[in-house]
């Protein structure tokens, strides 16, 4: 799976294919230009095989986009990226946590892909979502934020998640320090604060810790700055889109929207 993110040399006229999950991406080099085309699998379907930059015939009906890249070496590399908006994650069934409970959940977040050309002098050709996520609104109708919507099984064991080069597992630790049960139906994860680390079993993000103190008080939210404990020593392959803000205190667990913001 690591080979998916390796740099690949590409000759003039060559066409290379990357395929995983619901995405196919072709890159070809023509003169001083870079051409990129993508194809998404039908809903709920995925391409069966993982292909990492193999040479392939030029697809006939691909919708190509041209990118100018003068003076750049003929090397192309894909790199993973977190989505460009926050993601509202909805457990497939409502979750409840009693007072004093602390639990770690694993949420699989679809990645974006950044196509980078060059070796010494690098240029970013484009960024592409690996999967089309539905839009959703986080907040009240008069004030809020546009996010992506994602359904999750909110697994408690990372081994239950099948490895996928186009998703990153986000460890989410939630502690309920309020005297009443925490009932929530959705979580808003600010993915722009997450880094991505590469492990043997796939990609993982830094840990997100949330301490719930009731609806009237602000919840404490912390983003880990290092790889999570179960991926210690792993290599960081993507920085956060935005720097992590310390002491990020936001109101959480709105009963009306049942929203939790991480």
């Amino acid at each position, binding site marked *: 799976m690591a080979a998916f993110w390796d740099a690949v040399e590409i000759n003039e006229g060559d066409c290379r294919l990357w395929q995983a999950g619901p995405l196919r991406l072709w890159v070809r080099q023509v003169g001083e230009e870079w051409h990129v085309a993508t194809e998404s699998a039908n*809903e709920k379907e995925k391409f069966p095989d993982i292909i990492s930059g193999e040479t392939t015939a030029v697809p006939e009906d691909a919708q190509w986009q041209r990118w100018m890249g003068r003076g750049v070496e003929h090397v192309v590399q894909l790199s993973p990226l977190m989505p460009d908006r926050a993601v*509202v994650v909805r457990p497939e069934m409502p979750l409840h946590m009693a007072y004093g409970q602390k639990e770690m959940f694993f949420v699989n977040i679809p990645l974006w892909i950044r196509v980078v050309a060059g070796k010494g002098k690098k240029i970013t050709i484009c960024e592409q979502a690996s999967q*089309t996520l*539905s*839009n*959703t*609104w*986080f907040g009240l*109708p*008069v*004030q*809020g934020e*546009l996010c992506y*919507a994602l359904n999750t099984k909110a697994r408690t064991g990372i081994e239950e998640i099948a490895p996928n080069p186009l998703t990153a597992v986000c460890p989410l630790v939630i502690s309920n320090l309020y005297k009443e049960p925490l009932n929530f139906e*959705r979580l808003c994860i600010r993915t722009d604060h997450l880094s991505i680390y590469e492990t043997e079993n796939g990609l993982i993000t830094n840990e997100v810790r949330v301490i719930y103190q009731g609806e009237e008080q602000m919840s404490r939210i912390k983003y880990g700055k290092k790889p999570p404990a179960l991926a210690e020593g792993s290599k960081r392959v993507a920085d956060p889109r935005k720097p992590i803000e310390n002491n990020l205190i936001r109101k959480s667990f709105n009963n009306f*929207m049942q929203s939790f913001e991480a």
Partner: protein
Amino acid sequence: MEWFDKIIQGLSAENGQMVNSILRIVAILVLGIPLLHLLSLLAAKLTKKRFSEHSGILVRKLLGYTGYIILLIMVLNQLGVKLAALLGAAGIAGIAIGFAAQTSVSNVISGIFLLSEKPFQVGDLIKVGETLGVVHSIDLLSIKLRKLDNLFIRIPNETIIKTEVTNITRFPIRRMDIDIGVAYKEDVGKVKEVLADLASKNPYCLDEPVPLILFKNFGNSALEFLYGLWFFKTDYLALRNSIMQEIKERFDAEGIEIPFPHRTLYTGSATDPFPIRLVDTDADKALRKQADPDSSSSNASQ
């Protein structure tokens, strides 16, 4: 050069004061006008950053008008005009002008109220009566709208204060309400499922707030549903274009009939045929004869 010297001597001796005044007036105008422009631009920029574009425009105009009045007073002073008498005359004229300028004053006052109330800002899409447009500017006497077909509309502030104004883009998300009618023979549960599925698959429709699917009414010709889809305010056209087509295509695929309005006539019993009587008039006979002169006309009455 004797003539030149004579001119200078004449000017210096008799009109020295006037020359000084003219020079001062020129200095006031040459320095004052650019300085006034600069100050009003700076003030507008600061106000725009801190408050809104609307406030910036108003501050710039207020400073401008005030500045020009001050410059005018300074120029008149240099010309030796007695301002006290002028103001006295202005007071009397003011009463006369006041009656004539009632509407303008009302517009100015309405503009001040609009400024404090802020029902909309520059860039908002608003509807005033039947007029729909983007707010282009908010001025002392009126607001200017740019209609969606790029026409320019001026609406007096007084009209805005007295009329219902709908600010379409005030909030970040909106709901698009679509009235859908299906034939009475259709399964209501299936129709709701299809509509929910369409909403979940359309990329412009927000997952939350949850789309509204309401079985509204047993209509005259159809079962009436209200289909309310939430969307981000900039996605109106994209959602409208896509969802209407998707509804039609999906209904066709699922065999769900969208009936057109119709009336069923009964003559007292739903099962008996509706009785009719054909009447063969002379005009009908003449037409038939004209069409087929060889055939004999027959009596078609029953």
